[in-house]
């Protein structure tokens, strides 16, 4: 029974990881890649870890695995956020299909402050309309 | 007294460096503590020496794990002697540092690192484990990196980068060699390696291993063509630092070569031949370099190399007589080279430069100091009966009787060049009139120091000079000591038995 569960969990986990990898290759811009990365991998790895937790069937190990999963879920989005933010900051191009960019010109180049000023419509949006 | 005493030098230095770190910002306290520490270390070193003299080779199994399973510290006469010399040089240099190194430097852990360096040296001399030796080497080189680069002015940094890279390279080769020796013998205890390496069938691999060790140690001891870091860096740090480097750092490489050659690869013909060839080239390189330099400290640097060649060649001959010469020379060299660089520092303090072209008239203005320095310089040259002379007899004799004429020729060349170089220094620095000297007004000349400070500058030099004189005039003692060590080294079975059979 647990073996089957392990097989299922590991297969799913691997699948998500693989998808993340493919996504990383296929996605046209940095931000989309981050998106793909953060999710698929977290879920995938979470499942793989869960498989291990089930395999060892030991409370101490399970709690540790849980700790890892929580940790990944905690850090992965922060990493994503940092990368996305930095990517934008250093001027990585958004892909052609991007039609809204509310962030444009919101960063102060010098102080790195981010404002919340309303800019009704950004230029990208205008072009797409 | 228990055998544990041989680990006391390590304990003392480690203890004092920790204490010094707690007094991070209090330079005055540090100065006092470090001098006390070095006195204690000297006392301990004397005790170790006497203990070893009486009881012969003895072993401490660190962690109480018997060899070859744990790390052993082996106190034989060679180690005990080197520890004693380290303590003497260490004390002298610490006194010199207290006065000659500016407080800004001292405030950044100088003395801690200094004690760590001495710790490393003592450890390297004591350990009976190859990997442990590597670790001691690392504490030595990291300490030396720190000492050589702190203060980071341009030329010092230039020197430091080279020093760092080439020594790091050496460490990596050392590790490579360790990997190979472990792969072949499955052990790291030197005595055990010595036994087990005989069970290895493939002589070629043993030779390769020997060559890798040779490379690693030859880099440390500045053997040609692995010597480049030395002239590139030794003249850049404060004199007290180069003094301890000159006296002990290259010698620890020589020590390692001696241990390796006598214990692990004895009678390895390939290795012996390589050593002999290298020694000739080393002597030549050192001599050639020394003769064309104008900066005193650079001249001294090249002389270090030249004289390393003397010792390497003796090791390459590998008989009791040659080893006796090597050991005697080693003893002499540690003291005199340390002193040379202290002298470099003193000259700098006197004249604000160490470039011979810009210095002169020392003899006229400081006759007593000049005579003191003369004793050291003559000891260096080996003007008989001063210290550098005696070992040459053994080296001459052994090289002749083993028909190593090239080495004999190189010895003569090296001795001769040393003589000429020293005479040139004397003629330029001491005899010549002082040329025009441009100095910044802020430079504090020796004359402006308080008498006590002057004494602090001179005392270590006097101490070491007296010791040099003792080596020269009491050559009988040193010679019999060297003979004892050489016999021990040559008959390494005693060492092996002491380590492996409790």
């Amino acid at each position, binding site marked *: 029974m647990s*073996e089957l569960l*392990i*097989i299922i969990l*590991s*297969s799913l*986990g*691997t699948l998500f*990881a*693989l998808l*993340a*990898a*493919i996504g*990383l*290759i296929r996605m046209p811009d*940095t931000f989309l*890649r*981050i998106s793909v*990365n953060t999710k698929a*991998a*977290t879920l*995938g*790895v979470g499942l*793989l*870890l869960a*498989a*291990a937790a089930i*395999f*060892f069937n*030991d409370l101490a*190990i399970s709690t*540790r*695995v849980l*700790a*890892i999963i929580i*940790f*990944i879920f905690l*850090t*992965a989005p*922060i*990493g994503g956020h*940092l*990368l996305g*933010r*930095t*990517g934008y*900051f*250093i001027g*990585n191009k958004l892909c052609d299909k991007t039609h809204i960019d509310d962030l444009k010109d919101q960063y102060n180049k*010098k102080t*790195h402050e981010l404002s919340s000023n309303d800019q009704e419509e950004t230029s990208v949006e205008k072009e797409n309309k | 007294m228990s055998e544990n005493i041989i680990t006391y030098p390590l304990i003392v230095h480690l203890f004092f460096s920790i204490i010094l770190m707690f007094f991070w910002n209090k330079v005055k306290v540090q100065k006092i503590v470090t001098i006390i520490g070095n006195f204690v270390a000297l006392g301990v070193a004397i005790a170790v020496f006497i203990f070893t003299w009486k009881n012969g080779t003895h072993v401490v199994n660190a962690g109480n794990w018997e060899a070859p399973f744990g790390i052993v510290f082996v106190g034989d006469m060679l180690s005990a002697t080197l520890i004693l010399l380290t303590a003497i040089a260490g004390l002298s240099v610490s006194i010199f540092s207290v006065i000659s190194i500016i407080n800004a430097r001292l405030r950044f852990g100088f003395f801690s690192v200094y004690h760590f360096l001495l710790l490393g040296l003592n450890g390297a001399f004591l350990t009976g484990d190859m990997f442990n030796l590597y670790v001691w080497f690392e504490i030595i080189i990291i300490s030396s990196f720190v000492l050589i680069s702190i203060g980071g002015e341009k030329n010092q940094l230039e020197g430091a980068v080279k020093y760092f890279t080439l020594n790091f390279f050496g460490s990596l080769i050392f590790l490579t060699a360790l990997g190979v020796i472990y792969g072949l013998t499955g052990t790291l205890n030197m005595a055990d390696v010595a036994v087990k390496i005989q069970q290895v069938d493939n002589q070629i691999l043993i030779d390769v291993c020997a060559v890798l060790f040779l490379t690693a140690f030859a880099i440390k001891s500045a053997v040609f063509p692995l010597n480049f870091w030395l002239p590139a860096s030794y003249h850049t740090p404060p004199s007290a630092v180069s003094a301890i480097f000159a006296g002990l750092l290259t010698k620890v490489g020589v020590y390692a070569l001696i241990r390796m050659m006598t214990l692990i690869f004895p009678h390895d013909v390939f290795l012996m031949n390589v050593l002999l060839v290298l020694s000739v080239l080393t002597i030549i390189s050192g001599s050639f370099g020394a003769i064309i330099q104008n900066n005193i400290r650079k001249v001294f640097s090249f002389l270090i190399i030249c004289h390393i060649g003397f010792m390497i060649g003796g090791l390459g001959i590998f008989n009791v007589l040659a080893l006796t010469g090597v050991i005697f020379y080693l003893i002499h060299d540690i003291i005199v080279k340390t002193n040379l660089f202290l002298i470099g520092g003193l000259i700098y303090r006197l004249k604000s430069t160490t470039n011979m072209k810009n210095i002169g008239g020392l003899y006229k203005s400081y006759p007593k100091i000049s005579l003191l320095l003369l004793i050291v310089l003559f000891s260096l040259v080996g003007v008989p009966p001063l210290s550098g002379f005696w070992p040459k007899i053994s080296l001459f004799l052994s090289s002749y009787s083993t028909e190593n004429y090239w080495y004999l020729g190189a010895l003569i060349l090296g001795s001769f060049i040393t003589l000429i170089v020293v005479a040139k220094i004397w003629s330029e620095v001491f005899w010549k009139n002082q040329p025009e000297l441009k100095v910044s007004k802020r430079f504090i000349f020796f004359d402006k120091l308080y008498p006590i400070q002057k004494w602090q500058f001179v005392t270590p030099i006097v101490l070491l000079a007296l010791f040099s004189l003792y080596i020269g005039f009491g050559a009988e003692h040193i010679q019999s000591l060297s003979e004892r060590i050489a016999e021990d080294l040559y008959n390494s079975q005693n060492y092996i038995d002491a380590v492996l059979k409790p």
Partner: protein
Amino acid sequence: MILNDFLYYIILPLLSFSIVLVFIRFLKGPSIVDRIIALDLIVTIGIGIISIYSIINNQPNFLDIALILALIAFLGTVAFTYYLEKRDNNE
């Protein structure tokens, strides 16, 4: 045994293949951020590999490494982004 073979012959190769794909992204870049993303993902998938490997070898201890990897890899990412932002600030 079936489980082991399954993990050994299917899961691990697939995960390895994923890593290869991610690595291709690393090589391609183009932006440094893309490379860091790839690096991050390689570590993440590596954690997966470790957990499978710990099952195969029945070594729960390996999971601790996964934990440390998760912890530390994150810091690497933080450092890189910190650098990129600072660099921007200074040039």
